[in-house]
């Protein structure tokens, strides 16, 4: 079955509006979703600026990422199995992330050898 990576970008301001009680409810819902059988992997990303490497003329520049300035920071990703994009989208809609940021869904490429 094809695999899809769900990249979860978080809107820090939206999170800050939640009360402790609401945050706990969110965590519980995320974890309930994460425990479903179609979820095959995932990891959180450390919330710092990270590093960005890019060419600068003939040199290579390494900078701290722009993430802290942007409204949405990638907080982590999940990998799921789904028959197609339609199903992947449908399964993703149950993540309690709507309103707290965006979810980017990408199919994992598979090479047939």
């Amino acid at each position: 079955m094809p695999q899809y990576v769900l990249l979860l970008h978080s809107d820090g301001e939206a999170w800050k509006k939640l009360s402790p009680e609401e945050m706990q409810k969110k965590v519980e819902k995320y974890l309930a979703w994460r425990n479903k059988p179609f979820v095959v992997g995932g990891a959180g990303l450390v919330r710092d600026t990270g590093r960005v490497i890019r060419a600068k003329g003939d040199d290579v520049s390494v900078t701290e990422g722009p993430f802290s300035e942007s409204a949405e920071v990638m907080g982590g990703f999940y990998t799921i199995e789904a028959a197609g994009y339609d199903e992947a989208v449908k399964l993703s809609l149950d993540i309690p992330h709507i309103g707290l940021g965006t979810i980017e869904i990408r199919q994992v490429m598979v090479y047939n050898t």
Partner: protein
Amino acid sequence: MQESGSPVLLEHLFRRECGRIVAWLAGLLGSAHLQLAEDAAQEAMLRAAQTWPFQGIPQKPEAWLFRTAHNYAISSVRRTTVFSSKADALVAALESGAQPILDLDAEQSLRDDELRMVFMCCHPKLVPDAQVALSLKLVGGFSKEEIARIFFSEPSTIAQRLVRAKRLIREQKVALTMPSKGQLEERVNSVLKVIYLMFSGGYAAHAGEDLIRVDVCLEALRLGRLVASSSMGAPRVDALVALMALQAARLPARMDAAGDLVLLEEQDRKAWDDDLIALGFSYFDRSIAGEEISEWHVQAAIAATYASAASSTEIDWVSILGHYDQLMEMTDSPVVALNRAVVVMKVHGAEASLAALTPLAGNNALQKYHLLPATQGHVLAALGRLDEARAAFLAALECDCTLPEKRFLQRQLATVSMLHPSS
């Protein structure tokens, strides 16, 4: 992907730990730095909420939250220029004695921190609205949006109230200390009043099932028990806990499925919370062990009399009236006098009740209180004075009241109008 048997979160863990972390950090930093303590607690919750969905819940979630808040507080002091001259002292304060807490081996000391926080929030220098809001925010871990929902206010109004209260605490140097012996009684009384205000705020009947209201009642009950179990404990504290437990027990029966108010006498007693009833009676027994008889004792005795009736037809109204008479000698509250008039009707009939209501008619404090005209309407209807009853219910509907209360009054009005269609 998560192994079974992984930790689950206790109900209200975030909210509870938020309050405990604020109390602990503020205890280390002093009351001038409440904001830093709050920010650190908030940051710990945020980080948990954003990382646990991926990493799962840590083995000791409480320790994780305390450690994260503590680290944030230290790094925040170091990098914020406002603290510059005081930074070293603050970091030292944060580091001293933090270890036992971080090892989660200091329940008692956390309870003391919490208690000091309660006394600070209820300091007599603050106005009652601020005392309640501050207690809910700092001790209870409620957000300003939630507090606004509870009191039908705007979050910005609550935010302002909190900012002002914290400024006053800073400027007047209200310390996070237990009250001195000389002030003890006054300070404890102030705390008890705030706790019951908090409880009543949650208890007020409102449209829609907003569980946050029940949470507020239970938080008030928890704070009452916290004070009762401390060195500040006294029979009147036990009495207040008994009162709140016995009233909270009725919460599940207070509204019907349609969200309409159900009068105490018509409530399904089987829906009352047995655990809370038992808790209420055990605190009531403790409260009457001493010599002291406070207003809380008499209020609790009334609640206990209701709760101990086997059915609504077996309520001992004569005893309840006796308690109200006693209460009238202790307070000049017009609300007590009004409630007494309702009981007078049960014992001595409508005519006597009307006589008891008459002196209240011009009372300023009851001007906008819907239960005065509503009670008058009820009594007048019983006397067959239907035109006057109708006018009273219409007057009640003019007062501020919640939707379930409004619907209740409209039903009463409809009944009276039906009996007397010409009016």
